[in-house]
């Protein structure tokens, strides 16, 4: 990870920051001088993220949040305002994954993944817009979709639906954000296979699997959360000041195949 000077003093909410990509992003943002509100459901893991942000020399706190609950979003953006005086960036990173054949996917399964991935991201944009507008400095929203929001994957119909929805919402919100002065930019990030707990808890924490994924990737490497943190920092910062409504794919080349 490489620090990004343009993130200095920005106030950023990063969801799903208790592990994986969200935690890496929280560390990178804190190290770059941003003021970070890291959120998630696991308080013990959140405390660890908070510790890592402090060790990175940054200013960051953990707040417990269920992103599918609107009241939680109101509380979190309120904290951004009261603790750090406003809001510049929201990274809608939290999400869940599910592999299940389509005939076995129940409506309950669908509702669960939809509420977290789609409604959670929608609420993050909605309350992010409000708080960033009120702060008056313009800002950036980064929605973490997936390569599976661009291409299909057998057994991931519900997941692909949610990640495609994120890419679609991103573009509409980007057009609304571009109307504002100063603007709010909104973009989606599409990671390929990233070796995180989301992956290992579904497919198994197996080194042979890791090697197989790497071999199946044009760059012959496995994705790591740190790589995504760098891409999130690019989209969140003024380094991408003219970038809005785009899908940025960081997948080792899988999607080009």
């Amino acid at each position, binding site marked *: *990870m490489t620090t990004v000077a343009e993130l200095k003093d920005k106030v950023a909410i990063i969801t799903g920051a208790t592990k994986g990509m969200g935690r890496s992003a929280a560390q990178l943002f804190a190290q770059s001088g941003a003021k970070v509100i890291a959120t998630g459901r696991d308080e013990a893991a959140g405390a660890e993220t908070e510790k890592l942000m402090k060790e990175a020399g940054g200013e960051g706190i953990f707040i417990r949040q269920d992103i599918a609950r609107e009241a939680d979003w109101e509380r979190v953006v309120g904290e951004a305002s009261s603790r750090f005086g406003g809001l510049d960036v929201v990274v809608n990173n939290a999400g869940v994954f599910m592999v299940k054949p389509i005939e076995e996917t129940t409506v309950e399964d669908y509702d669960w993944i939809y509420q977290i991935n789609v409604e959670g991201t929608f609420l993050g944009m909605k309350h992010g817009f409000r708080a960033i507008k009120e702060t008056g400095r313009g800002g950036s929203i980064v929605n973490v979709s997936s390569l599976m929001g661009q291409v299909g994957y057998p057994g991931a119909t519900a997941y692909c639906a949610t990640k495609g929805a994120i890419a679609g919402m991103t573009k509409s919100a980007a057009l609304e954000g*571009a109307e504002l002065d100063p603007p709010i930019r909104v973009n989606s990030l599409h990671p390929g296979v990233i070796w995180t707990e989301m992956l290992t808890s579904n497919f198994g924490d197996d080194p042979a699997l890791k090697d197989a994924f790497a071999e199946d990737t044009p*760059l012959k490497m496995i994705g790591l959360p740190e790589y995504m943190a760098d891409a999130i*920092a690019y989209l969140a910062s003024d*380094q991408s000041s*003219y970038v809005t409504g*785009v899908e940025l794919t960081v997948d*080792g*080349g899988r999607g*080009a195949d």
Partner: protein
Amino acid sequence: MAGELDGKAAIITGGGRGIGLACAKALAEAGARVLITGRNAEVGAAAADSLAGDVRFTQQDVASDADWSRVMAEADAAFGRVDILVANAGVSTAFPLADMPLEDFRAMQDVNLKGAFLAVKHGAQAIRKHGEGGSIILISSVMGRISAPAYAHYSASKTGVRLLAKAAALELGAEQIRVNAVLPGFVRTDMTAPFPEEQIAPMAVPMKRFADAGEVADAVLFSATDRSKFMTGAELVVDGGLITR
């Protein structure tokens, strides 16, 4: 970040003006040694002189295979290695399709598409020499995704460049040679001089302005550094929302 390209060497085609010059500045500020190329020796030499750091210029016709061989030899002599190649040189003209002489169509493909092909070919060969991998960045355009009347030849060339990047990414990935495409929208350069920003931007661009060349250079810099070490075959659109609606 300053210093993140220390020890690296870059070639930027069409580096005398506009986006290419902004890329040269961004990469040089990040610590890279830079060789800029272009057709106009006066403009190119002045550009190299205007930038801090080890920035050189050599004349080049990007459609000439022989010129590429010479440029790569010059880069090798100057820097001993090549890590980054930005294929930025390009031309743009408007011409209704049904009236376009084949020569005009061909002239554009020569610079925009053949020039990008030769950049990948010679860039990959040079990066291969040290075996540490590298980054090749092809400047495509939003016109590689959408088009406009009288721009068939331009869109054809830029779509070709966009897919060339993907094919090259697949072929060179195992050697850690990354190939990505950057797709700018309207940028304040000589090329967009026929398009008055105050008339076009409010209608066509959601962000209601054109980009500064430096804003495109930021995407190129991201693609050139290890911050994008897992990114290849990707498209970085820098268009103020132009193709979002």
